[in-house]
C-alpha cells in the first residue's frame, strides 16, 4: 500500500505540465538535430544553417516565396555588377546596417557594417587555422586566396592584413571580388551560411567562445543557447528597416502568404527552438501544440493517410500539411574501383532488379519520385520526359544481363556489403534492397556505420557500395553532377569513384556557363548520358513534409530556408482559440 501511495504522490506532484502564454508573439520550433554553435564558416547542414540564419546574414538571400529560387539582395544593396569575362564582381552594401549590441564593440553598441567585414568573413573561410567546413565552396575560385591559405598553413598565425588580389575594398560600402576562373554559382555561395558576415571585433573578443556569442546583423539576437535542450532568440531592436515582400509565386496571394506584405520584419518577438532528436518526442510535442511547425521526417505516416491527406483528427485542430519535392537524390553507389562493378552490365542488372515502386510504397508512402538520373526536378537539367531504361523493374532483363556479364543467377558474384548509416530506416531500406537482389542471386548485406565511420570508409575507398542522399547546397545542377565527376573522387564527393572522360569533358565546359537555357540543355545531355551508364543504382527524389499549426502564418516550404524565420508570424487569436482543443 505504501508503495502505491508514494507512487500516487509522485504522480500528483509532477502532474502539472506547464501552462502556455498567449500574450507574446513567440515562435516554437523544433530542431531535429543538435547544433554545434554559431560560427558561419562551420555551418554545413540545414539545421545549423537555420539557427545561424536567425542571427547572421549574407549578402544575398533566396526569395522566400518565389519559385524557382531566385536570389535577392540582403545585406547587399543590389545584385553585383559583373565584368564581361565573368571574373570581377563588384558589390554595394546597404547603408545603415548595424551589428547587434555586444560587449565586443567599444561602447557596447553595435557598429555599422563595412566592406571590411565582408572581406574579413571570406578570409576566415579560407583561414587554414580554422579549417572551415565551407572552404570547398571557394577553394581555387578567388584570385590569390589559395596562395594566402597555403602560405599560412604551416605558420602559427594567419595574417589577415596581407593583401589578396581577389579581395578588394573599393570604399567603405563597396567590395570587389576577383575570381580566378568563371564560377557561375558564386552568387549562390554568397547566400549560403558559410559567407554570412561576422565582425572581426566579436571573433577577437570572444576567441574560441565566439561560437556561443554570435554577433550578427540578423533579425534575432541569441538569448539562451543550451546545446541539447533549447535555443532562445529575441527580436533584434536595432534591426534595419526590412519589409515583408509584396510579391510571391503564383497563388501565394490566395494562400494568404502576402497578407503581411509591407510589414516591418521580423514578425515575431521571440523564437524558442527545442532540440529534439527523437522522432516520437517531436511528433507528440507537436501534437500537443508545443511546437508551431514540424518537419516530418520518418513520422509522416502518423499524420498522413493512404491518400496523402492529413488525418481527420489533425485537420480538426486546424493543422495543415505541406509537401514539396526536395532538391535531393538518393542512391546506392557502386565503388567503381571494384573490378566487379567495372562491368556495366552488372550495374545495369542490379539497377533493373531493384523494385523502386514497391520501395516507394513501403518507405515513402508513394510520395517520392523515382530518380532517372542525377539531377532532381526543380533544377535546370532535369527533363521530365526522360526515362532511364535501367530504372524500371525487370527481373528477366536483369537476369539476362547478369548472365551476359558472366554471372548466371549470381554465380561467381561475391557477397556485396552496402555501407549505410545506423538509422532504422537506412537499415530497413538495405534489407529491402537485399531482398530484391536475392531474386537475381546476388547476396547483399548491410554495413551499419556511424557517420564518421561511413565517411572514413568511403573516403578511403574501403567500401563496395554505399548509400546516401545528397541534398542541394545551392540550386544548380552542377552541385549534383559533380558527384560523378572524376576529379571529385574519394575523398571528394564522388564516393563512387566514377570516371567517365566524356562526361568530365562536358562538365568542364558546362560549369563555367552562366545560368541559361543553353546550360540547362548541356546539363540535360550530361545527366542522360551518365544515367545510362548506371554509375549508381538511382533511388528517389524525396518529398519533404511539414505540418504547421493553424496559427502559424506565412509558412512556405523552402529548400534554403535559413532566413525564413523573420517572415513567419503567429496569430495569437487563433492560437488562444484552438489551444482548448489540445
Amino acid at each position: 500500500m505504501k508503495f502505491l501511495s508514494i507512487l500516487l504522490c509522485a504522480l500528483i506532484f509532477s502532474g502539472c505540465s506547464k501552462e502556455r502564454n498567449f500574450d507574446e508573439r513567440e515562435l516554437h520550433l523544433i530542431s531535429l538535430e543538435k547544433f554545434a554553435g554559431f560560427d558561419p564558416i562551420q555551418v554545413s547542414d540545414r539545421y545549423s544553417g537555420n539557427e545561424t540564419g536567425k542571427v547572421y546574414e549574407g549578402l544575398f538571400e533566396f526569395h522566400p516565396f518565389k519559385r524557382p529560387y531566385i536570389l535577392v539582395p540582403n545585406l547587399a544593396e543590389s545584385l553585383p555588377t559583373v565584368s564581361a569575362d565573368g571574373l570581377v564582381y563588384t558589390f554595394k552594401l546597404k547603408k545603415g546596417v548595424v551589428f547587434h549590441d555586444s560587449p565586443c564593440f567599444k561602447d557596447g553598441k553595435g557598429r555599422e557594417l563595412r566592406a571590411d567585414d565582408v572581406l574579413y568573413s571570406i578570409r576566415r573561410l579560407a583561414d587554414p587555422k580554422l579549417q572551415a567546413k565551407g572552404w570547398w565552396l571557394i577553394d581555387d575560385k578567388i584570385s590569390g586566396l589559395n596562395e594566402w591559405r597555403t602560405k599560412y598553413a604551416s605558420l602559427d598565425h594567419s595574417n589577415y592584413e596581407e593583401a589578396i588580389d581577389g579581395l578588394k575594398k573599393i570604399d567603405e560600402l563597396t567590395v570587389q571580388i576577383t575570381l580566378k576562373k568563371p564560377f557561375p554559382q558564386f552568387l549562390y555561395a554568397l547566400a549560403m551560411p558559410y559567407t554570412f558576415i561576422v565582425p572581426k571585433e566579436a571573433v577577437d573578443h570572444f576567441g574560441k567562445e565566439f561560437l556561443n556569442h554570435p554577433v550578427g546583423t540578423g533579425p534575432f539576437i541569441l538569448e539562451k543557447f543550451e546545446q541539447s535542450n533549447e535555443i532562445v532568440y529575441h527580436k533584434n531592436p536595432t534591426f534595419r528597416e526590412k519589409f515583408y515582400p509584396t510579391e510571391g509565386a503564383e497563388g501565394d496571394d490566395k494562400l494568404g502568404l502576402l497578407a503581411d506584405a509591407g510589414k516591418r520584419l521580423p514578425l515575431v518577438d521571440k523564437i524558442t527552438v527545442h532540440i529534439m532528436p527523437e522522432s516520437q518526442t517531436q511528433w507528440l510535442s507537436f501534437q500537443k501544440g508545443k511546437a508551431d511547425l514540424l518537419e516530418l521526417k520518418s513520422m509522416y505516416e502518423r499524420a498522413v493517410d493512404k491518400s496523402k491527406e492529413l488525418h481527420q483528427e489533425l485537420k480538426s485542430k486546424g493543422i495543415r500539411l505541406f509537401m514539396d519535392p526536395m532538391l535531393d537524390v538518393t542512391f546506392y553507389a557502386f565503388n567503381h574501383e571494384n573490378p566487379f562493378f567495372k562491368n556495366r552490365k552488372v550495374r545495369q542488372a542490379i539497377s533493373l532488379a531493384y523494385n523502386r515502386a514497391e520501395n516507394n510504397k513501403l518507405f515513402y508512402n508513394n510520395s517520392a519520385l523515382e530518380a532517372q538520373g542525377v539531377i532532381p526536378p526543380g533544377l535546370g537539367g532535369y527533363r521530365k520526359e526522360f526515362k532511364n531504361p535501367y530504372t524500371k523493374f525487370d527481373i528477366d532483363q536483369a537476369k539476362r544481363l547478369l548472365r551476359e556479364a558472366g554471372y548466371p543467377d549470381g554465380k561467381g558474384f561475391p557477397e556485396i556489403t552496402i555501407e549505410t548509416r545506423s538509422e532504422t530506416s537506412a537499415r530497413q531500406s538495405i534489407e529491402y534492397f537485399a531482398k530484391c537482389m536475392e531474386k537475381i542471386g546476388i547476396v547483399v548485406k548491410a554495413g551499419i556505420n556511424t557517420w564518421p565511420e561511413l565517411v572514413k570508409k568511403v573516403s578511403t575507398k574501403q567500401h563496395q557500395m554505399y548509400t546516401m542522399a545528397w541534398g542541394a547546397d545551392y540550386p544548380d545542377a552542377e552541385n549534383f553532377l559533380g558527384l560523378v565527376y572524376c576529379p571529385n573522387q574519394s575523398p571528394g564527393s564522388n564516393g563512387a569513384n566514377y570516371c567517365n572522360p566524356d562526361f568530365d569533358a562536358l562538365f568542364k565546359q558546362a560549369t563555367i556557363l552562366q545560368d541559361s537555357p543553353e546550360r540547362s540543355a548541356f546539363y540535360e545531355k550530361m545527366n542522360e548520358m551518365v544515367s545510362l551508364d548506371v554509375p549508381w543504382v538511382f533511388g528517389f527524389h524525396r518529398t519533404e513534409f511539414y505540418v504547421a499549426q493553424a496559427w502559424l502564418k506565412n509558412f512556405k516550404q523552402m529548400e534554403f530556408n535559413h532566413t525564413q524565420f523573420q517572415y513567419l508570424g503567429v496569430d495569437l487569436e487563433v492560437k488562444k482559440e484552438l489551444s482548448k482543443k489540445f
Partner: protein
Amino acid sequence: MTKYIIRRLLYMIPVLMGVSLIIFILFNLVAGDPSAVLLGKNATARQMLEMKEQLGLNKSHFAQYVDILKSAFTFDFGRSWATKQQITYMIKQGAYPSLCLTIPAFIISTILSLIIALVVAFYRGKGIDLFIRFVCIAGMSISALAYILGFQYFFAFKLGWFEISGFEYGFPNFVPYVALPGIIWILLSLGPDVRFFRTIILDEVYQDYVRTARAKGLSEMTILLKHVLRNAMIPIITYVVIQIPYLILGALLLESFFGIPGLGGITLNALNSSDFPVIKAMAILSSVIYIIFSLISDILYTVADPRVKLK
C-alpha cells in the same frame, strides 16, 4: 584512516593510466575518422590532411597516449570536436539535468525498494512476499524501450500529466520534465534493488543475534527495523553508494527520448561522432568518480560497521 584515504586516492593513478590506455587503444582502432566530422561532406583531401595534423593524430602513438595521460591528470580536456564546446563546460551543463533526473529517481527507488524489501522480508515465504517479488521482477523484465515508447505516449501525450520532452533549469521547473523518465527509472531499478535488499535482509534474519533479540522479548517489527536493518545497512550502503557514479553519468536512453540534455546524451553523441576528446573526458571523469565513490563507500562502511577499521 587518513593514510588509507591517501593510499586509495593514490590508487587512482594506476587506474587512470589503465583507463587512458584502454580508451586510447579502443578509440585508435575505431573506424571513424574525426576529420570527416569536423570538415563536413564536402571536405577536400588536403583539408583532411591538415586537420589530422592539427588534431595531433599524426603524432606517434606514444606521444598521443602521453597527451591523454596529461589531460587525465590535469583535467584539461580541451574542446569537443563535434560540438566545438569547451568540454568542462559541456560536462557542467550536462551534469545538472542528469542529476535532476537521476538523483530524485535514485533516492525514491532506493527508499521504496528498502521499504518493499522489509515488507517482503517480514512476510517471507507468504503469498504477499511472492506477489510483490513477482511484480518487481516482472517490472524489470520489460524492455526499457517498451516503457519509454508506451509511457511517453500514454501518460505524457494522451493524459498530458507530464511534459513530453525537454528540460528547464532550476527547481521546480524541471520536475514535470524529469518525472516520467524518473518513474521509468524507478520501475526498472525496483526489481534488482528489492531483490538485493531482500537477500541481504534475509541473510540477517537468520542470524543468532536475532534469536537473542527475540529471547529478550522484542517484537518482530522492532527486531526487523532496529536490529536487522542496522546490520543489513552495511552491505546496502556499499551497494547504494557504488551506484552513484552511474547517476552522474546519466541515463542514456531516457535522456535521449525525453530530450534531457544530460551527460548520457553527451556520451552517446560523442560515441556516434567519434568525438574522441569527449569520450576520453567522460571515461576519465567516470573512473575518477568511481574511485572516489568506492572510497566513500568504504568509509561509510566503517561508520555502519564498528567491526571494520580502515588501515
